[in-house]
């Protein structure tokens, strides 16, 4: 299974902390997000991705606590047992 964790606005929007999906061979983060959207009734992808499907500036997506920006972006592959954390843009000080 892949453990997907929701933070910030996503948690308020989806009213859940996490969701599990069975792993699919050779799946990327981008494909996983599309599959997740199909499973959830509430539209949420617009909080993370722009109209072109690229992450909105400030969005942080981590796979096993590594930011996909420093991996293969949305082409980063996910596999069974991975933890994917989704953070819509936020900031602090």
């Amino acid at each position, binding site marked *: 299974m892949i453990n997907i964790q929701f*933070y*910030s*606005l996503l*948690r*308020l929007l989806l009213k859940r902390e996490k969701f599990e999906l069975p792993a699919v061979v050779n799946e990327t983060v981008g494909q996983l997000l599309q599959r997740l959207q199909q499973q959830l009734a509430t539209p949420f992808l617009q*909080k993370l991705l722009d109209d072109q499907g690229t992450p*909105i*500036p*400030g*969005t*942080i997506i*981590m796979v*096993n*606590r*590594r*930011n996909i*920006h*420093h991996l293969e972006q949305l082409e980063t592959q996910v596999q069974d047992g991975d933890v994917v*954390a989704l*953070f*819509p*843009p*936020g*900031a*602090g*000080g």
Partner: protein
Amino acid sequence: MSRFDLKGWSGKLLRVDLTAGTCTDEVLNEQWAKEYLGGRGLGTKYFTEEVAADVDPFSAENKLILATGPLTGTYGAANGRYMVITKSPLTGTIASSNSGGYFPCELRYAGYDMVIFEGKAEHPSYLQIHNNKAQLMGAVHLWGKSTQDTEDLILAEFHGDAKVAAIGPAGENQVSFAAIINDKHRAAGRTGIGAVMGSKNLKAIAVRGTGGVKIADPAAYREAAIEAYGMLKQNPVSGQGLPALGTPVLVNVINQLGALPTNNFQKDTFDGAEAISGETLASTYLKRNKGCMGCIIGCGRVTGLAGARFSGDGEGPEYETLFALGSACGVDDLAAITKANYICNEYGMDTISVGATVACAMELAEKGLVSEQEIGMPLSFGDADALVKLVEMAGQREGFGEKLAMGSYRLADSFGAPELSMSVKKLEFPAYDGRGIQGIGLNYATSNRGACHVRGYMISPEVLGLPEKLDPQATADKAVWTKIFQDFTATVDSSGVCLFTTFAIGAPQFANFCTAATGAEFTEETIMEIGERVYNMERVFNLKAGVDPSQDKLPKRILEEPISDGPLKGEVNKLDQMLPEYYQERGWSAEGIPTDERLQTLGLA
């Protein structure tokens, strides 16, 4: 008398001689206003012109300056900020601390850009300002009161619509990290400015103003405001993220990244992060969000506790507080953290420094360097009840609180272990470990007031990816980015606008605002140059004060002890790879001294 013809600024400052008990109006220096804008820049210009760098922070010769910017109290972005400038008793450096709310705007509406306090009052006093008139009042009846009670009493005896900035018992007791609290819950928190105010027997400043801010070109200003408003609303950080969850949203982000300092920086992931996160706060103690005057972001957190152990109402905790009173102390009890935050606001204390100092004490106890008898209670990481008790004792300087009130460096040093103070220039670190995020480490080392994140918020590019994503573990290009962030922040701090607007708007928008408001011409280039001028002016003061470049360093733990856990395990800060390039970018000598040529270019020599 000199003239002040520009708009935007009120063109007038109030000089209060506490020794003589007099209040005098002065025309603001117009040339300085154009070169240093206001707030941090103009306040520091006046301070450095009038006060010797070697001044004892608690002497009558030290001054305390409250400075707004030309945009404070105007509409359009988040323009409710002011700065307090003095010499810090905690760091020995120039001190300037920023706060927002309604008080800063009221000062503008009462006719003043700035208030300069000098000397020392014979008895506890407070200042009343009512539309261009000021007088000192006795404050014996307010001495010892919390900041909130002080405000309530002043409103009852002065004016019900006045806005108040006050110190609490911590400032009176000259706790080295005492803050000035305005509007009951907003803190000019860092570097001990409240202790300087207390040393002058000055309890509060109460202002009632019904005037406005004169704008040079209202049509152009309106255009700039509409543009900025749209950018702030459309930006996902300022338009959605900060309003919904405020700064505490970062607890889970930084913990996932592996850079949330825990147990006095002995770990960088915290098992209790979820329990103290912004998401948990939103579902427990949060009542609503709140903005400073005219703010369309509204990041403030209005909270309430109604439990058997802790009760009360207030604002906070912010992200930094959740770190300092939370993970840094190993405390995962959100109610206890919130209560300790309330105590800090009531006593007037910086939540970062007091929390980090308690965390330091916890490590001293863990290592057997301080005994249970000396502390007066058992102390270990994770002890929420001890945390709440020690925070109050620090504010009162009671028992072991006397030691805590010195700050973490002097505390650790007094027990023979200064290396356990997680600080730079004796100012405690905020909530990001510079071992895993290289640029923020460089900023901490070179910040003019010690380890401060909001002097050059490298977290924005290194973690959040704004305006573009940098690799937090890389050292390349961090020097140039740090300089840009430090300089632009100095300008923003001088304008009266909140730093959080800069997630959405940049130097071009600030140039438009300042030009339209004042009638003087500002460009993107001059906006950045003002910041660089301010930064170098602060640096020169620090050098004269004896804070030399050898203090541009990080604690041994950050440089030599690799992170022990989490995804960034094994990382240390590589300051030596960044610092020479940073000095070069600044046009300073290889030893970190601003060159005459650079100072002349900036109009500082």
